[in-house]
């Protein structure tokens, strides 16, 4: 009998403030054996995090476990008193949250936080626990395992913090580990390290684990079995091999189809015709926030009707580049030209025509739309502002715009809060399209979206390019998306352009070392990839990996 967790007929309900309860999770049953990794996948809102939390007998505020049994180590933890259930957490079952940066207390040293749970459960005294923690740090490949516990959370990188959080979760040697999107917030290069560390430690300790994610490629690396969820119900369950290669259910097939081919599986493209003259061009741009220089001497050309993809890890200056071109961040040196005209550095000094021709779309659709304005007003304002459309004409054009981004015209009277993430991102795009620009700067527009929704947005961008001849600067850290969509690629690292050229050249050998590092870090949809990468890395001289 080595089943650690069994959940039977689980039903979780939630309610809006002051509202009535509605079911979030319906009739879900699952079980996890010792040493097994079960992955829960699905879009946001599919209830995957909610299910993972119930494994601790916990529901978020405003939610309740309405029905069902949760058997952990042979007892139904929904039947035991809350105090006993509380004692289980961190002892028999522990949890790794999505954002380690938000979960660590910034005022306390890391070591103290890592050993907090076993200390609280009275497992051992502080000094012996610290020794155990150091062993864990070593297993997780953390640098300076003997001293890293003395640092504060802001003194280590995001990937290290995520691994430290795993150390915290493992410090009680729990029987069940819950990992809630632990690598979603990380760059691809960091993700590889963290995945490897997770996989190693789960294997070493023989812990059962629930891995929650929406990234199928990640799942392929770590999971033994996969549970596909949609709208709080189980769609399909099976071994990783089977789900990845022979999905049975239509929804699972859609999910698989939305995954883009890895960059170097791209077919050989036809040699490009002569590049048209650039519509937008940034020359030798240097920008800084105070004394910190973010961009060093960056030059980018956007030919008419083409897509320039900008890739790089977070902190490489991608977003700053877009902001400089839009005039939101002042540049120190260099010029930005639009159709041959040099643009003033500050957005305030630019003419209305220039502003109209170059639109920016922000990453977070949640914050980019004013929550107090109806969609009608959000889309209507640029129409009024740039084109002076009023009354009947304005509302007709709004309906056209909504149709353009595949939204029903009835959405005009809604507030952004009444839309889903993908719908908001479409409105966000429609607002840029309302100006009928020549260039759109897309700053990570698909990063916050689920695979299926993101694929829809990319399709939309493509069709707009083909129909309206719009050019894009498409900023992303997701290489698969860029490889599929962009004509030209700019690879950035620490504020400098390290590689630049047509997509087929950048993504084909011989690679620039940094591009190669990025490429090899994108998880593949097949099992065993992680081990191959690791073997490859160990053979590569380290100076190349460092870039």
């Amino acid at each position, binding site marked *: 009998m080595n089943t650690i967790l069994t959940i039977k007929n689980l039903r979780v309900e939630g309610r809006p403030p002051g509202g009535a309860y509605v079911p979030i999770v319906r009739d879900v049953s699952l079980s996890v054996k010792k040493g097994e990794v079960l992955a829960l996948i699905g879009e946001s809102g599919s209830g995957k995090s909610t299910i993972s939390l119930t494994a601790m007998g916990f529901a978020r505020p405003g939610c309740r476990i309405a029905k069902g049994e949760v058997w952990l180590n042979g007892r139904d933890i929904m039947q035991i008193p809350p105090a006993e259930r509380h004692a289980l957490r961190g002892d028999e079952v522990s949890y790794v949250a999505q954002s380690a940066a938000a979960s660590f207390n910034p005022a306390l040293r890391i070591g103290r936080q890592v050993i907090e749970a076993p200390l609280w459960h009275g497992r051992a005294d502080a000094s012996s626990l610290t020794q155990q923690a150091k062993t864990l740090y070593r297993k997780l490949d953390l640098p300076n395992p003997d001293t890293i516990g003395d640092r504060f959370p802001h003194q280590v990188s995001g990937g290290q913090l995520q691994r430290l959080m795993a150390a915290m979760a493992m410090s009680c040697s729990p029987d069940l580990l819950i990992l809630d999107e632990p690598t979603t917030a990380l760059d691809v290069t960091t993700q590889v390290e963290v995945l490897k560390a997770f996989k190693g430690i789960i294997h070493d300790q023989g812990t059962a684990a629930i891995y929650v994610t929406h990234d199928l490629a990640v799942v392929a690396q770590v999971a033994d079995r996969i549970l596909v969820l949609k709208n709080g119900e189980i769609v399909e369950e099976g071994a990783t091999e089977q789900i990845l290669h022979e999905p049975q259910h239509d929804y699972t097939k859609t999910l698989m189809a939305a995954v883009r081919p890895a960059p170097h599986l791209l077919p050989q493209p036809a040699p490009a015709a002569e590049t048209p003259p650039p519509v937008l061009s940034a020359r030798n741009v240097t920008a800084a926030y105070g004394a910190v220089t973010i961009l060093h001497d960056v030059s980018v050309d956007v030919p008419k009707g083409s897509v320039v993809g900008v890739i790089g890890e977070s902190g490489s200056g991608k977003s700053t580049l877009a902001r400089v071109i839009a005039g939101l961040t002042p540049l120190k040196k260099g010029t930005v030209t639009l159709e041959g005209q040099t643009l003033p550095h500050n*957005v305030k000094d630019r003419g*209305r025509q220039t*502003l109209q021709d170059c639109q920016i779309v922000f990453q977070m659709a949640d914050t980019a739309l004013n929550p107090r304005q109806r969609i009608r007003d959000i889309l209507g304002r640029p129409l009024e*502002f740039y084109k002076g459309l009023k009354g009947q004409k304005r509302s007709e054009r709004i309906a056209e715009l909504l149709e353009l981004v595949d939204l029903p015209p009835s959405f005009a009277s809604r507030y952004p809060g009444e839309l889903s993430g993908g719908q908001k991102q479409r409105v966000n795009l429609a607002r840029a399209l309302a100006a009928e620009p020549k260039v759109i700067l897309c700053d990570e527009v698909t990063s916050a979206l689920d695979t299926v929704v993101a694929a829809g947005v990319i399709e939309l961008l493509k069709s707009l390019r083909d129909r309206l001849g719009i050019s894009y600067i498409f900023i992303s850290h997701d290489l698969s998306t860029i490889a599929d969509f962009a004509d030209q690629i700019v690879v950035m690292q620490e504020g400098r352009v390290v590689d630049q050229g047509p997509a087929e050249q950048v993504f084909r050998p011989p690679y620039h070392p940094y591009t190669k590092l990025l490429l090899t870090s994108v998880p593949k949809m097949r099992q065993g990839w992680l081990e191959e990468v690791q073997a490859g890395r160990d053979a590569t001289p380290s100076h190349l990996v460092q870039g």
Partner: protein
Amino acid sequence: MSDTPDVSIQQTSTLSRLRLTWTAAIAGFILLIWILLAVVGPWIAPHGEAEIISPQTFAPIGEGGILGTDKLGRDVLSRLIYGVRTTLSLALITTIITFVFGVALGFAAAILKGGFDIVVSRIVEAFMAFPSTMLALVVIGAFGTSQTVLVLTVGLVMSTSVFRVSRALGYDIGVMDFVEAARARGEGTWWILTREILPNCMAPLIAEFGLRFTFSILFLSGLSFLGLGVQEPAADWGLMVQENVGGLFLGSSAALIPAACIASLTVSMNLLVDWFQQRQQGETVLEKIDE
């Protein structure tokens, strides 16, 4: 490519959508009565504002008037009813002045930033360093005690804290992506302020308005008690407490009744603000207990 189905819009009455808790309902009821009295007071008050109805001063409840008489033999009930109007209207005007100054300067500082922000913030901090009652005493002492001076002084003194709140709100919301998007579109400062920032500050500002209103009632009553606020023969609750405080030793309740009225007004206002704030943040405490 399917998105989530239509969000169903709940068809409920206006009253139930307010999600009033019972504390808020009681507080709202009390406030409504006071406001009603302020409007129709002169027609239903049994006697005039300064009319002496009895030779007996500090008459107990039931003798002379329904609520007794004050130190000059005037009807306490009538003065109370006339006093609502003075107390509420002065407090309202003061709070409006507070907000016009505080919000305008606060948002200006948040948007213009730089030199303007530094200068205004330091001046405001200098004013905040003085105890507000002291500051008001000095100004009123220098300019005399007219209602105009009173309202302006209290309004300006209290606007310092509203300035801090709105400056912080302005800074917070001014860096949101939708404000950046408006800036990238080329919108002017006025549009950004009135259409993008202000609507998103309304909830905290309304809550702040309720609080400031309460404080200004207390502040004005306090000044009246010190003899620097509303002058006799006009009726004001704070003034009534001060006039009749001597009667306490004679067993008269003429000072206690207006004091209780001030308390009912401020407590109700606070309850309403609490309810509003919690409702904006999600669930109210009582709704959670209900669970």
